[in-house]
């Protein structure tokens, strides 16, 4: 079970958080202009990385804020956490 450093509250137990899948998939600005394929890409296609993965988490039983996590899916090590809107750290 992870120890996750919430960018707002600090290090807490994983039980306080939940994960919401891959990060940095922005909702398209004008969905109506997209083809079915492009829209499907946004809805369904995820990178499912082996290695460095960026994902969204919420501190549900804490500050209720969303933030991003950089995690190695092989070692399960959390390498960084950062606020929404911030640049993703380099791997």
């Amino acid at each position, binding site marked *: *079970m*992870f*120890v996750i450093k919430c960018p707002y509250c600090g290090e807490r*137990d994983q039980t306080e958080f939940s994960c*919401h899948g891959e990060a940095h998939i*922005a*909702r398209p600005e*004008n*969905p*109506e202009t*997209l083809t*079915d394929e492009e*829209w*499907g890409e946004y*809805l369904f296609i995820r990178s499912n990385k082996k290695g460095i993965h960026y994902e*969204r988490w*919420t501190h549900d039983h804490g500050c*209720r*804020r*969303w933030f991003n996590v950089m995690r190695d899916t092989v070692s*399960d*090590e959390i390498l960084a956490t950062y606020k*929404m*809107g911030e640049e993703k750290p380099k791997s």
Partner: protein
Amino acid sequence: MSNQNRIYKGGRIDRDQAINFKFNGKEYIGYQGDTLASALLANDVHLIGRSFKYHRPRGILTSGSEEPNALVQLGLGARTEPNMRATEIEIYEGLEASSQNCWPSVNFDIGSINNFLSRVFPAGFYYKTFMWPPSLWLFYEHFIRKAAGLGVAPTAKNPDRYEQKFHYCDILVVGAGASGLMSALAAGRSGCDVLLIDEKHEPGGYLRNISAKIDNLNSNDWTNEILKELESYENVTILNRTAVMGYYDYNYLTALQKVTNHLPYLSDKMPRERYWRIRAKKVILAQGAFERPLVFSGNDRPGIMLASAARTYLNQFGVLPGKSVILFTNNDHAYGTAIDFANKGAKVTIVDNREDIPSELSDRCNKVKIKIYPSHSIINTQGYQKVKKVEIQKVDQDNNELTGSLREIECDLVLMSGGWNPSVQLFSQSRGKLEYHSKLNSFIPKDLIKNQKVVGCNNGDFNLLEVLKNSYQAGLDFATELGKSANKSLEIETAFEDLEFTEAKVEPYMIGKKKVTHGSKHFVDFQHDVTAADIFLAQREGYISVEHTKRYTTTGMGTDQGKTSNVNALALMSHIHDKPVDNIGHTTFRPPYSPQTIGAIAGRNVDHLFDPERKTAIHQWHVDNGAEFEDVGQWKRPHYFPQKNENIHDAVNRECRAVRNSLGILDASTLGKIDLQGPDVAKFLNLIYTNAWSKLEIGSCRYGLMCNEHGMVFDDGVTTRISENRYHMTTTTGGAARVMSWLEEFLQTEWLDMEVFCTSVTEQWTVLSISGPNSREFLSSLTDIDISKEAFPFMKMKEGKVCGIDARIFRISFTGELSFEINVPSRYGLFVWNEFMKHGKKYDITPYGTESMHVLRAEKGFIIVGQDTDGSVTPKDINMDWIVSKKKEDFLGKRSFSRSDTRRTDRKQLVGLLVNDKKTVLPEGSYVVDEAKPRPPMDMIGHVSSSYYSPTCDHPIALALIKNGLNRMGDVVKIPLMSGKVIDATITDSIFYDKEGARNNE
């Protein structure tokens, strides 16, 4: 005769404190400090139980948690526990235990016929037998369940208390033997917060059982000195009787502490067990090693045990379990046990399958008259309920063949030692990688994970002085990493064990394997009765991967998790395939390390603490007035309010009629409520809901549907504009938290520049929904607000006083009748409710529950999200296209409406269903078909989502999702019931009552 196998002095038992206990109904005496196993051995009881598959008589193999054989049923009544290891149970006055897996008694067990039928119970028996036809599965299951357990589960509720504790420390040391004590000492001296855990009742581990000297102190006295120092440190916590069960990411470990299990009376102040959840900055594993059995024919009889276990019984418990002893070994170390036994007067013979015995050893054996048979192997044993004879034969090492003549030796105890397996279970759980050590013939830790060290025998190191020094250094190193240092260095100059375990040259499993034939009894896994023949069979039948062999033969799958069997099984596979063990691999170790109670994992989260219960401010009134409750999420909601002898149908019919004819009242406080504030709320709502929100006036309410990005309906509710920048959103009861997260997700991750603040106010407001033609007249006398039809039209909100309390009144309706939803602060909720009940008498005000609410809304064709929708339904599918804005450029879900699948015209659509017989209330969830066949499969065209008897219409009504349903009005469809009966029903409009909506505009 009592304690006939007890020696006069020595050991760590207190001979002045006799303890009475019962085994299989017979009374025995043991002493303070005994385990059930040691006390039984002292009384010359070797037969403990029957084996799992063949019901063979079994005794005591080990002296610890790795015990596969000596499993007993412990205690009586609601506290009885099955499969308890006699080697771990500390005896207490009045203890009662009994044998398992035998009937009518352990001495005469009918199931042992399986032993003679073993040819019909080969590996994979269940897989081969219980396969087909599927209709026989219920029969198979019964058989499998019966065969699947050894002991009996208690039938009454456990009366004990279990607790949990969260613990944070600098350094966790697992195991308080030689190495663990040293690591803890170094860390303790450095001022680190140390948690030292050991599964035995006192620390010391192996040092309690061997002849070793450390700086001129014998190992027992030395251990006590170290303990005294450790106990003097406030920063060191020592937990005995505690087993670390799981080792997870980031040094998170769980441990089970047996707090009062060893006491005759369970205290009502102390829990029975305590479950520790530990987060440690550093972890040092110092769990030691398990001795490995040897695999030979008949190696499972009572009276055959591991050499180290016998030594423990002798030196720690003062028990000499046999007087005529055979030791079968492949290493020097076990000779120490033989010499200890000879010194206590036993006649000892050593069968050693090595050719060259070091002369120092043979000299020492000569002195105490121990005869040695080098290059020999036990090839069979005799004796039914206890071993009485072994057959030995010479081994030709080069050809791995038996030569020479068979020799029989009488005995009453056989000890075996196949070397040592480091206890790598926890290390492996932590994702540590193992490697095969060819000299030890076992797996040892290879790559450590972060913030972890493995020390001592656990790491494959068996030299005592080195172990002590290295373990101390490990503690120091971690302390340094934590920025602390010890003010004392380790002073130990000399430390040596009488005979050290160096390396075992010999294959660990067996000699004479050519004698392994179908049905022969070379046991590899004692608990699951897996023999060498089973392993051979699995390989022949193609289950070659180690994971396949494990599952096919069930080796290592018992409650002991193969602590004594795994390495032998792997070595056997290595022999069969003629490949090094490294290439065979090993199975994965998983928590728990040893069996643990579910009670401890549950802790205090049982009964009413299992899941929080949410109650409205009116709850006690509901209870006092006989409501039957329904769980809606965590909420307790009144389901209906039966009067006198009413059943649910009578009550619901009465409640519904009251609403339609006069005045009903519903506690609607559970509705999700979210307060939205900020300049961008309207813009935000436009993106969240399918309809338009920009023009909503202050004081107006609007119904909205929310869709997810797939265009599927996800929640609904009414949102009201309270003031310029403030809105009040309601959600479904079950969807409140989900909607709140949904709003936050978009505000926090997509539209960061929007100024909208969401606050859950569900519990801040009590909502009383009054409904019925008399509701206006009734309410007008209790409020200062003008609620006349002209001044207060439908879908408006007004603020004012109700019964003298500040309130918001919403003119919205979920019943189709003239309705008002009165919101008051929760602390006044019950007061207002009581006022309503008092003043409503005149109109026969009738409280109604969720069932009537469902019927009333279904009569009007109002959907319930989650019941009439299931996450695969668009607004169009539920005939609510009218609420989807065609003008808005964007909102959540919009783009998906034009995907080819959501655009299909033959999707399942929400329609009404009227049964042709006018009386059958269709079960919700029933399948709808065009053509009913005598048995499935049938082509399903939809399902019934809501179904009730409608007291207003006086016939059953139903809502259903049916393919192309909106274009099939008037068609007759079939509903096959589980009973085999087929009901005809006609597709209709989904509104059954007051289609024009005149009534709520009264």
